[in-house]
């Protein structure tokens, strides 16, 4: 079972300015947590801190009892799968080789039975098994995004941190990816933390939402409690309202808030 991921008094300064400070947050395994907030609020920086890829200026991130920075590179990577925002794929390797890179933190050959099984399962789960022999430079944007998710799953992490994993996906693939993230969390007990810009989608997808704005957490909690019109107005300067839909409340963005 995954352990709790917690940020305690996290602060990051960027160019002399406090990006955020005194940030406390608890992330529960088995749930999908969405981090939202305006551009430049520090979502990606927060994700890097949570993933142990960036040392905060103050505070700490803990996985269970241990700090993520004290885990050691490979041990941390085995437990926390991280999907960067702008993934780079430098060489035209084939899809299976790319997904197999996800096994790197296990320090195995990449060809052991356990490696092969994990890679195959990850590719099946993300629906990219059919692409296995294709070169990554021949994939569409949506196919690439799914292959990269498969790469993260191949490492069999307890936590999956994804920075804007839905960007560039068409609505169909966005729904598929959301379904996959929810399944991973609810059925397999993975902790999923992701950033995204689509507030209506966050409302539907997330089990809990963090709103990062004004140098800290503006709101957090269940989606409908965190994403209130008041919070959205303060964070984005946008008028919004919750309307009743067939499958629960739907967030409607009306327009720029007249200050």
């Amino acid at each position, binding site marked *: 079972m995954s352990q709790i991921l917690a940020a305690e008094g996290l602060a990051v300064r960027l160019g002399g300015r406090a990006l955020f400070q005194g940030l406390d947050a608890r992330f529960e395994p088995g749930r999908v947590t969405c981090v939202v907030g305006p551009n430049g609020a520090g979502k990606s920086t927060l994700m890097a801190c949570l993933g142990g890829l960036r040392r905060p200026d103050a505070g700490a991130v803990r996985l269970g009892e241990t700090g993520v920075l004290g885990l050691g*590179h*490979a041990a941390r990577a085995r437990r926390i799968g991280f999907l960067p925002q702008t993934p*780079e794929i*430098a060489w035209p390797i084939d899809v299976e080789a790319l997904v197999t*890179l996800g096994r790197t*933190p296990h320090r195995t050959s990449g060809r052991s039975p356990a490696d092969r099984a994990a890679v195959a399962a990850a590719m099946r789960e993300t629906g990219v098994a059919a692409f296995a022999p294709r070169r990554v430079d021949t994939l569409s944007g949506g196919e690439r995004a799914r292959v990269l998710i498969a*790469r993260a799953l191949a490492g069999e992490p307890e936590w999956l941190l994804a920075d804007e994993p839905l960007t560039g996906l068409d609505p169909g693939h966005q729904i598929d990816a959301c379904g996959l993230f929810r399944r991973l969390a609810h059925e397999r007990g993975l902790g999923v933390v992701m950033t995204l810009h689509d507030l209506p989608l966050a409302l539907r997808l997330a089990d809990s939402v963090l709103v990062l704005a004004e140098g800290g957490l503006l709101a957090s909690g269940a989606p409908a409690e965190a994403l209130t019109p008041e919070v959205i107005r303060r964070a984005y300067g946008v008028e919004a309202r919750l309307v009743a839909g067939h499958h629960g409340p739907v967030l409607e963005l009306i327009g720029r808030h007249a200050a």
Partner: protein
Amino acid sequence: MSDALVRRPPAGAIAAGLVILLPLLFALSLSAGRVWIPLEAWTAWGDDPRWTVIFELRLPRTLLALLVGAALGASGAALQGYTRNPLADPGVLGISSAAGLGAVIVLYFGLTAASPWLLPAGAMIGATVGLLALLALAGPSSTVVTFVLAGIVIQTMATAATTLAVNLAPTPWAVDEIVSWLMGAVADRSFEELKLATPFVALGLILLLSTRRALDALTLGEVGARALGVNLASVRLRLAAGVALAVGASVAVTGVIGFVGLIVPHLVRPWCGSRPGAAIVPSAVAGAILLLAADILVRLTPAAAEIRLGAAMAVLGGPFFLALLIRMRRRIT
């Protein structure tokens, strides 16, 4: 659709081909030269004077070509993998020139008389300084463009300093020594040079091999590699030390031979699915074959004076560089 699939010959067939090619070239290299020595002379042992030619001139020369070719090929593959830049190479990035400068300084002050180890030491220190300057200049972002620009800066500065050394050399003999050494060759080398270079090249190759998994992970960029648990500081250190040892020791005994590290990874890349880490061993083998083949060709050229291997590789490498550029442009547009 078929174009989207990776088409590659079976890796076993390629490996078998290389394994057959290597001893063939080895035998050819012992026979070929100004004097052709047929196979029967090999078995005459000490009785035949041609035996001396084989074992004291051509054998060290052959082994040295293999050693230096492997060092340059592996270094090129590792540098291309680390920088994610298909144009990276110890020559292009100025590391060979920096190693050359280190050695020229030793020659300039006539220090080789003091100890034969000072020449490789100078070259390895030069390579290390060049590589550290390269990593510092390219900065943490290390995009393709900044890397190539940083390489040009180092190449220019090292070449300028080398030219200055030639210019100010105290005696015409020193000038002659520096210039002829700079051109790069494996001719007239003995087992002494081989003994000098082998331990350093071997250590360098071991260090480069240790970065294989990390280089594969770097396909996903620096953030991607760190997310996969790669300790980039350690990789950078092992790579820098590996290249400095392998290239520095090679330059010390053969002078500057360019383009091997540039060409070879491109030749082997399609056979290893473009995985940068998987390209290191085949690049070392192919580099050894390429340099030995080039040296045999150089020996067989009917010219008044033997063409220098460094010059021959430059003649070969120029058009290859051009073809590479054209292919990259086509991919972008």
